[in-house]
């Protein structure tokens, strides 16, 4: 059995025995085989000496047990690392940032405390997955949708705290943005409720108004290590009458500029409210000598040169599909207005897409080709993983402008080409109202040399994104220091603030050391 760094074997044994008194001996794990199940299945360091490994795991079932565990951990200076369902694959899974930590596994806290159909919200614990909440809603015949993360076994709370996003309209697909109210266990064992939840008699108002009064504390507990979130409320979308799509194709390289400008304003007006993915059949086509030569030009290739290249491939430059949700007459008016606004763009092609009406039958649900767009969890995203043993995701955030997208994509294309790695994903996705995510996937294998190259590319993507101001919003656990080092304005003032908060809220440094680059005082000297 491994012992956490800096903890004596005797103290560790005592703490583990006290954990067992709290949760039951069967929910404290130290044997090698079980601890192997806490390894990060998609670790870029798999099997290498630096792989992040936990020493033990403890799995409480109640908030009172969480309180008792943090008090014991504080007494014996045991580093804890909190996971909810532990399915944060590509970002660290169920393994800690700081090797030797004891995983605080909240999977057993799987109570759906309330789903309120009239006020359209759910209040859940960290172990509740999208599948769990979906089944709960269906079994009760409630006409509510969940905005799901792509892998449906993920935790609503875990994904929201990582600021994940889904595929239905805003505000729901921004998972942190659509939460309302938290319960948090602090490092001293105290329990805090945020927003209206601080009113002893808040009732459903906890999930109605996020702010309450005074500073809004919720943001402190996302992508951090200042507390352990044990409950969160989420707004849910009432099931719409139907959904339709409209397809858009633009011919030339520079068409993206007026196209995105128009779609951005339509988004800010609320007329376009979907996640839309901008694809470029030209940029995502296989690398060849002509494309490589274009990228080597000082400007990354002019619009005319790229247009000639697109013509040689015989394809249009851009394509996307808009999805609308609601009553048919409202959606048809929205799409008609989009078509009107885009009609002036030369060479634009606009086409009516699918019509789906709700509720779906069980048979339709079983055969759905895109469940996530209709609030239904699945694991279909793993179809994109065929032949790999895992991946890393770099996810730069870009302003909602065609110029920024063009510049960024050429920069990333060049990085992938220089690393000898094919660019495998699409272009840009409008998960958030005013920013695009330009996902950059990096495949992992079981070969340490290939993984070393993958790590080098991933680190380079973080660095380049930071330098250009296209900060990455979320990173794998092995790269959190590198990520946060890019947010360096005024001599890392943001990290200095985070460290001040860490010292105040977790003076013994027992909670999730190293998460998002925030280390307790006694480990700061050791960080990369």
């Amino acid at each position, binding site marked *: 059995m491994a012992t956490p760094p800096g903890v004596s074997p005797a103290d560790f044994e005592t703490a583990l025995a006290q954990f067992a008194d709290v949760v039951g001996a069967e929910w404290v794990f130290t044997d090698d*085989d079980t601890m192997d199940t806490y390894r990060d*299945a998609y670790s870029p360091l798999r099997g290498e000496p630096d792989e992040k490994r936990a020493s033990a795991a403890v799995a409480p079932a109640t908030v009172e047990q969480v309180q008792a565990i943090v008090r014991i951990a504080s007494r014996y200076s045991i580093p804890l690392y909190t996971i909810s369902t532990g399915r944060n694959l590509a970002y660290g899974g169920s393994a800690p940032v700081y090797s030797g930590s004891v995983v605080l596994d909240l999977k057993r806290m799987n109570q759906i405390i309330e789903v309120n159909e009239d006020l359209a919200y759910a209040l859940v614990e960290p*172990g509740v997955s999208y599948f769990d909440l979906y089944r709960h809603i269906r079994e009760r015949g409630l006409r509510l949708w969940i905005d799901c993360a792509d892998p449906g076994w993920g935790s609503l709370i875990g994904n929201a705290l990582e600021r994940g996003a889904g595929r239905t309209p805003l505000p729901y697909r921004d998972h942190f943005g659509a939460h309302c109210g938290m319960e948090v266990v602090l490092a001293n064992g105290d329990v805090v409720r945020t927003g209206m939840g601080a009113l002893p008699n808040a009732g459903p108002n906890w999930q109605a108004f996020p702010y309450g009064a005074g500073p809004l504390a919720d943001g402190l507990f996302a992508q951090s290590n200042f507390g352990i979130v044990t409950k969160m409320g989420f707004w849910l979308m009432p099931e719409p009458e139907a959904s339709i799509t409209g397809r858009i194709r633009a011919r030339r390289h520079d068409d993206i500029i007026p196209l995105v400008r128009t779609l951005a304003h339509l988004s800010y007006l609320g007329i376009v409210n979907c996640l839309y993915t901008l694809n470029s059949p030209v940029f995502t086509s296989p690398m060849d000598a002509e494309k490589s030569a274009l990228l080597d030009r000082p400007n990354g290739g002019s619009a005319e040169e790229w247009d000639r290249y697109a013509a040689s491939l015989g394809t249009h430059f851009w394509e996307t599909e808009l999805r609308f949700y609601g009553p048919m007459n409202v959606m048809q008016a929205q799409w008609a207005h989009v078509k009107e606004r885009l009609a002036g763009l030369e060479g634009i092609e606009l086409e009516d897409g699918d019509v789906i009406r709700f509720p779906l039958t069980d048979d339709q649900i*079983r055969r759905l*080709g895109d469940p996530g767009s209709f609030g239904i969890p699945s694991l279909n995203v*793993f179809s*994109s993983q065929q032949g790999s043993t895992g991946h890393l995701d770099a996810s730069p955030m870009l302003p909602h402008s065609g110029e920024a997208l063009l510049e960024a994509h050429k920069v990333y294309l060049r990085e992938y080409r220089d690393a000898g790695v094919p660019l495998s994903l699409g272009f840009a996705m409008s998960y958030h109202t005013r920013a695009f995510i330009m996902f950059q996937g990096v495949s992992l294998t079981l070969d340490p040399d290939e993984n070393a190259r993958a790590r080098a590319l991933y680190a380079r993507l973080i660095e380049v994104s930071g330098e250009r101001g296209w900060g990455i919003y979320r990173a794998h656990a092995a790269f959190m220091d590198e990520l946060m080092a890019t947010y360096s304005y005024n001599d890392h003032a943001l990290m200095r603030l985070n460290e001040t908060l860490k010292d105040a809220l977790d003076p013994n440094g027992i909670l999730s050391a190293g998460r998002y680059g925030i280390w307790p005082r006694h480990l700061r000297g050791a960080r990369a």
Partner: protein
Amino acid sequence: MSAGRANSTAAFLSRLALAVLAPASLLGAAAVSADPASSADSAWSALPPERADVPGDPLERRGQEVFDQRCAACHGEIPDEIFGPRFLPPMPGTQALEARYRGELPAALEARTDLAPEHVAAVVREGLRSMPGFRPTEVSDDDLEALTAYLTRQRPSGD
């Protein structure tokens, strides 16, 4: 805690060996006992598959439930026809095994008759390629035992 717990794969397999020799009714009673980590409320599929073939043996029956809850969203039957827009193909586990075996073995796990108990247990706990392993807080030892019994059950030839 580790010293007294029988939660390792090796310990699980030794219990499995015992299970093969013990009366099925006793095993069934043990396997369906309350387990907060794998309650019926916790599942990894949107809808359970439609079942015409519920096993008579209680342990295998529980194993089928575990399969429906924990495995079917990846390892179920690929639908003949997709409804609505396509994003990513369904049943990634079945797709992966189809690509791997190319018709030499069935791609759907429930159609396999060659699975060894040790293999099922090892893949669930350790994972395989892009499939991650699963912790005892997700799939309990009891549920893994039932799942293994279900996927390795004796069937009449031609089944």
